[in-house]
């Protein structure tokens, strides 16, 4: 389902504050509405800013098999840090505002509504040396890839000592060589 969401033009997406989190709703071409609640409720950034950061995070490290909720969890780290620091908050809000402006100048819509990934990537490429971009990117290195729930998707099994290592669990099971 997440795969479909990411392939749908984000212009069909809306974000609603719902329950304890943010609800990302996507209207599918069929008219069906697909919703996915993120555990993260923006605590400092505006909901639109938060949603743009999620889209931006996906565009930086795009994994079609990973749902938005995991990117949102990573962005939640930035959002949380921005609670305690006006400078951090300004970096995010101003960064997203500038990114949206660049998108409007180029594509006539905000960043999150630019339909094609390549176009969004081109917008990011133009700012990749800037502190805002580096903040969002570097946050993902640990914020995304250190989420244990994602490791099985990559085929990584994590801790093994508690399972007796791999001596009897396939350390040399390669069969295709």
């Amino acid at each position, binding site marked *: 389902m997440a795969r479909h969401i990411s392939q749908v033009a984000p212009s069909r997406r809306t974000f609603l504050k719902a329950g304890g989190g943010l609800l990302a709703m996507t209207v599918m071409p069929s008219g069906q509405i697909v919703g996915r609640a993120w555990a993260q409720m923006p605590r400092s950034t505006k909901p639109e800013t938060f949603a743009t950061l999620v889209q931006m995070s996906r*565009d*930086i*490290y*795009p*994994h079609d*098999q990973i749902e938005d909720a995991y990117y949102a969890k990573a962005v939640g780290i930035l959002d949380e840090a921005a609670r305690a620091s006006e400078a951090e908050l300004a970096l995010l809000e101003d960064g997203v505002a500038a990114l949206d402006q660049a998108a409007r100048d180029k594509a006539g819509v905000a960043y999150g509504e630019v339909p094609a990934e390549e176009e969004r*990537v081109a917008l*990011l490429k133009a700012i*990749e040396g800037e502190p805002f971009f580096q903040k969002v*990117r570097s946050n993902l*290195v*640990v914020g*995304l*890839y*250190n989420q244990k729930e*994602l*490791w099985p998707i*990559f*085929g*990584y*099994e*994590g*801790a*093994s*000592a*508690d399972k*007796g*290592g*791999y*001596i009897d*669990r*396939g*350390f*040399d*099971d*390669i069969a*295709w*060589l």
Partner: protein
Amino acid sequence: MAAPYDLDDDGVVVIIGSGAGGGTLGTQLALKGIDTVILEAGSRHETWDFINDEWDSFSQLAWKDKRTTSGDWRVSRDFPNLPAWIVKAVGGSTVHWAGASLRFQEHEFKTRTHYGEIEGATLLDWPIVLSEMEPWYAMAEDRMGVTRTNGIPGLPGNNNFKVLEAGARKIGYKEVHTGRMAINSEPRDDRASCMQIGFCFQGCKSGAKWSTLVAEIPKGEDTGKLEVRPDSQVLRIEHDASGKVTGVVYADAEGREQRQKARIVCVAGNSIESPRLLLNSHSSMFPDGLANGSGQVGRNYMRHTTGSVYAVFDKPVHMYRGTTMAGIVQDEARHDPSRGFVGGYELETLSIGVPFMAAFLDPGTWGREFSTAMDEYRNMAGLWIVGEDMPRAENRVTLSEETDEYGMPVANVHFDDHENDNAMREHAYRQGAAIYEAVGAVRTIRTPPYPSTHNLGTNRMSESPEDGVVNRWGQAHDVPNLFVSDGSQFTTGAAENPTLTIVALALRQADHIAGRMAKGEI
């Protein structure tokens, strides 16, 4: 029972650092009946405390105190405050090492003779030859239980090794095997055999891997002649009017300054901290730092020419299962200038988990080029290049303007790759990719050097006092009762992982120190 020694006891040998050099030396001196105190900057974590999680383990074990960097090496750009990935804990980086235990080759002790004059490099022959080191290598191998020595079988090859081996043989390499490893392939020395856990870098949780923490220090402590004092960061070494060292000042666990007197001081803090400490121990008698009459302290910093090749296949490999360094190709370790560079390199399997792969695969890159590689993690095999790099006078550790929490200047590590390093790395990247392409790799990725694990050479050993910091015994040219006991005494770096040589030198040095003490010479 570990011996507690008094701060005012001026009869003890004080060793700074408890890793391959310091931990071995301290244990060996204690076994010889000599009163020894090891001051270790880090804490003591035991086998059962280690964590099978890359970032959590990094927090637990890594030396994270601030350092700065300069120079054209990529580490300075990618990890400006983390030039080295080494351990701050009892056992030092033997807690983290992968276990590869290779002897240096004969010519590697005589690089100036064999490689000739290389512009921009400060090659120098060691004041020792291989034949003199052989008995100490043999003793070290026995002590560490190195596989493929002393009748100890090799470790079984894991998936990552099998891919490497198949590819290497296909392109004609002959010296391919599961390595000479200080990891038990069968129970030995009261330690169990390897369970193929992986996570060798995070501290071996089965105790199969040799470290000074599990295999040396406890034996030293059992003699009642060794005290290991953790959480003790040495700030400076003191001396008397005659120029002999008298003890060290260190910050204890509470940050209070303590003064431990000493008959002899041995510095073994790894190649960044050791010169930092000597440089910081300046005085009116030694204005440029202790033992630095030559101006060589901190110079000739080496880190091996490294890099990784990760290869993506269309079927699963699960390279992370089992030992991290699971096998080796040694054919390129020879000196053969026809390849376009002097010296040689080893190719050794390496695997890192998803968290570290994200951080190290190609730092800074993003987009689908990066994410599609991560998507193939399960289908990846990987190797690490370990090659001899050129010593250079300007590649050096210096004291920065910045100070740490104790007011001690932090170390700056400057490194510029020599053109020989770049030529070797390029060759190794090409050969590494060829190995994997020979067995069907659909993509190969050149991973730039990680923060340095092999830090060498900043207190180099030399025949002549003008050329280096210590003599053939690791004894400071300028200070008779001061020794250097870690990899910083390496004159040149060789192509091999340094630990076995550090241990062999420490065993040899222990013999020397004990002999000189018995004669009342120091």
